[in-house]
């Protein structure tokens, strides 16, 4: 008589069960790993679902016209230009591919008015300030802007230098929609009151008409205006971004309380950490070195 022993049991009953269990456990393990991976990847893309104006589309607003070097040839959909490139990179990290990004034009005023906005984010060199933060939401900063002084050759011939004392004596003109006015009043305190204008082109026009001697813009804009719009413009010097107590940083502007902000911040922080943002800056803003510091 053959009694069932352990090895029989193993062979006939346990071992097949064990085999099956082993297979199941393996299958379950593989499946769950795949699931976790899959959701991790999708989680990044799903952050923005349901939070945009149009489902599945990111609507980005910028200036009209949009200036070099922030956008090339006033065509943001080409992806060329610092802000255009940053916008497309952030969009793709949020799960919006190039064909799912739509561009529109909106001014600062349209961005801060109460009421429904017709964009998800708005980027056109907006500086992040505490007062503005109370009314709108800004993303994490995507650029630290050095403020630069633009003058004409004739001012340099008359003895203007990159020192505060010399700059005090000049007649200043500022774009009143920028934080340059505050910077001027805090750091330079000019002897005569500055003249204020609506936009950068009016400031350079006043310079051409010799109504003002000097103007202040963020460094890339100053370089562009000096070289292209004003033929004999010279960037006299810069205040580096981290010099003042409140450094000038650009952020993407969004409606107050916009749920999309956290997705945008995640994308921007990732871009800053892995160096993508620095790469984009080096590609589009590489001329912004070599300008002397103002003492």
């Amino acid at each position, binding site marked *: 008589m053959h009694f069932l022993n352990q090895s029989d049991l193993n062979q006939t009953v346990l071992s097949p069960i064990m085999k099956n269990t082993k297979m199941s456990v393996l299958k379950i393990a593989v499946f769950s790993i795949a699931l976790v991976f899959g959701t991790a990847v999708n989680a990044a893309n799903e952050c923005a679902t349901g939070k945009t104006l149009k489902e599945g589309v990111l609507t980005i607003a910028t200036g009209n016209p949009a200036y070099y070097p922030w956008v090339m040839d006033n065509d943001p959909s080409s992806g060329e230009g610092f802000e255009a490139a940053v916008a497309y990179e952030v969009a793709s990290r949020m799960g919006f591919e190039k064909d799912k990004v739509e561009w529109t034009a909106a001014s600062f005023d349209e961005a*801060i008015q*109460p009421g429904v906005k017709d964009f998800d984010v708005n980027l056109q060199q907006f500086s992040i300030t505490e007062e503005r933060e109370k009314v709108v939401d800004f993303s994490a900063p995507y650029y630290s802007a050095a403020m630069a002084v633009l003058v004409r050759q004739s001012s340099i011939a008359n003895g203007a230098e990159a020192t505060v004392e010399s700059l005090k004596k000049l007649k200043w003109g500022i774009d*009143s929609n920028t934080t340059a006015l505050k910077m001027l009043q805090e750091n330079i305190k000019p002897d005569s009151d500055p003249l204020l204008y*609506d936009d950068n082109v009016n400031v350079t*026009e006043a310079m051409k008409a010799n109504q003002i001697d000097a103007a202040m813009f963020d460094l890339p804009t100053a370089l562009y205006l000096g070289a292209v719009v004003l033929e004999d413009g010279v960037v006299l010097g810069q205040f580096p971004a981290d010099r003042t107590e409140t450094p000038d940083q650009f952020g993407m502007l969004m409606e107050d309380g916009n749920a999309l902000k956290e997705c945008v911040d995640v994308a921007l922080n990732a871009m800053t950490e892995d160096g993508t943002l620095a790469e984009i800056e080096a590609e589009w803003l590489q001329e912004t070195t070599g300008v002397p510091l103002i003492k």
Partner: protein
Amino acid sequence: MKSRSATRVAYEQKQKRKGVAIATLSTLLVLLVLIVSIPQAPGWEKVKNSFFNGEILVSTFPSLLKAFTLDIAIFLWSLPAIAILGLLIALCRDQKTPAMFPLRMFGILYTDVFRGVPVILTIFLIGFGVPGLGLHRPWNSPYIWGTLALVLTYSAYVAEVIRSGIESVHESQRAAGKSLGLSQSDTMRFIVLPQALRRVVPANMNMLVALQKDVALLSFIGPVEILRQAGVHKSLLANFTPYVGAAIIFLAVTVPATRYADYLLAKQHKERS
């Protein structure tokens, strides 16, 4: 005429009191409806915070008032120039002799051009364009050329108003002047113009009120007057209340001017009828 009876007077008084009561009631009702229904709108809180923020209104008001003094200054120094130039252009258009035809043509062209082009365009073209030709400081100041642009535009309107006044003086007045042996210019100076100018004072007051507001357009070429100052606050605070503050200041000046113009118009009607 028979004097009215006591009962008639009492009846009329009662009707008048009834009318005042109904008017008051109806006004209160309309106000109530507005006060109750507007805050029901879903966006009211945001609009209130964006346009009617009391804290920001109070904090920006002093700087707005200070900036308004520049508006008043520009207004005051433009006024005499507009009055004189407007009168001259009106007289140009009034020339009837063939020898003076070029002057008349100039008058017509001038009023057509400067009334047709928007003021802001004129301000840009003259305020930036002329200094850009190469003038030296202080002759290229935006105050000078911006004011000139305003003066040129408004004198075109004032010229048309004065011309309508001149034409409203009846031909018989000129005939009377002629019969007295007065020359053309003397007739104009002593007979026609005094009447014409008095007749168009209400219309000119209208122009004055419009000028008070259009002075703000000089902000586009640099001067920091109230519109620009409000814009600076708006940009830094991301709030539109400074513009409401500026509007209040403008109203404080233009409403009395408008009421005075109405008073003059009523006085004129009374004198005529």
